């Protein structure tokens, strides 16, 4: 099951040229680029691991692309995303975020049902991949 989180996630994977164009767009808006990775694809897992510090004051996508390439190389088998942070007062938040690397196979989620008071059912989802310990999920 293909994870659809962030912008462009219903499209085919972006090529390097497309990623570069998106980063160039973000930089032209004055946003700061950062790279993050994780091996826990749960949709509520908002805080991924940071790959180095966010990159402020960049003018060209080359520097950010270098970090994207380095992170993909180090974490080839797991999820990597690029965030663009807008520091403008009133926004002060991520304006654009898209996945640039994903595992070869994504096993998807199990729907877990829990019987609660009376005959109520509580639903939750669990990633099949996340059942293995951290670091060994997409081997």
């Amino acid at each position, binding site marked *: 099951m293909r994870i659809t989180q962030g912008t462009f996630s219903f499209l085919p994977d972006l090529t390097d040229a497309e990623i570069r164009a998106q980063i160039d767009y973000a930089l032209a808006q004055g946003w700061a680029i950062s790279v993050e990775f994780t091996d826990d694809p749960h949709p509520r897992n908002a805080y991924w691991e940071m790959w180095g510090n966010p990159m402020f004051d*960049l003018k*060209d996508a080359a*520097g950010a692309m270098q970090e994207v390439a380095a992170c993909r190389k180090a974490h080839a088998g797991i999820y990597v995303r690029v965030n663009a942070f807008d520091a403008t007062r009133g926004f002060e938040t991520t304006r654009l975020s898209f996945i640039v690397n994903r595992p070869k196979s994504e096993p998807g989620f199990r729907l877990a049902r829990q019987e609660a008071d009376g005959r109520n059912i509580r639903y939750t989802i669990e990633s099949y991949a996340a059942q293995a310990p951290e670091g060994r999920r997409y081997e």
Partner: protein
Amino acid sequence: MNTAAPEGIGESVDLRSLLADSHVNEVLDELDAELVGLKPVKARVREIAALLLVERARKQMGLAGGQPALHMSFTGNPGTGKTTVAMRMAQILHRLGYVRKGHLVAVTRDDLVGQYIGHTAPKTKEVLKKAMGGVLFIDEAYYLYRPENERDYGQEAIEILLQVMENQRDDLVVILAGYADRMQTFFRSNPGLSSRIAHHIEFPDYAADELEEIAQKMLGQMQYRLSPSGLAALREYIPRRMAQPHFANARSIRNALDRARLRQANRLFARKDQALTREELMTIEGEDLRASRVFA
């Protein structure tokens, strides 16, 4: 139908229209108009512009020459215009499509070298990332290398710099600047760096008449003018100042003018009971310059 040339590639290319398209002539003319003297520098800048333009024409004809390396070193005494030219260089390279963004990131040793082990590499890389798509200007580059301390982190910064200069030529242009004699020793102890720099440009000292022209231009920009006695004083001042130690070419002239403005203000203030005309507010008199310690 001609099948020899690939589609979209013509038989001839018009350099003049390429030149007009790039608007590089405007920058070059500005360089000529605003910077006094510096003949060898201007000549070299024109050569580089020509090379890039021809390279572009070749690309249109489908001839692959590879990106020429354009890392440079600017050597010259203080105040000879190294930073100003570097700024212009970034614009020119941008107009010619050699760098993508055309901004200038000016740094010194402090911005590249860290304070403890493991601090230097991330710091240098961050600066390099910021400079990508533009020009990285390293002022007083010889401070990067301190032979007296073999554990100095400067060497690490140089190595990272070398790697990027070699592998990411189309991402950024590095310009090293500094005083001639110290740059020579620096290059001698880092031959790898010297050989990766294609253009060694020397900035000559200004002659007295060039300095006078510079002074006039600076005053014009600040909306001042010299009275005849002021001009005479300036003509006398320049050779005297040149003979003194710590003479920093245009920078010394700028400082002298700033002090003259100070004295002019003081002079005008002393007779504050009278109304001042526009003329008086603009004019620097001989006495403003002659009060300098140079005439002592």
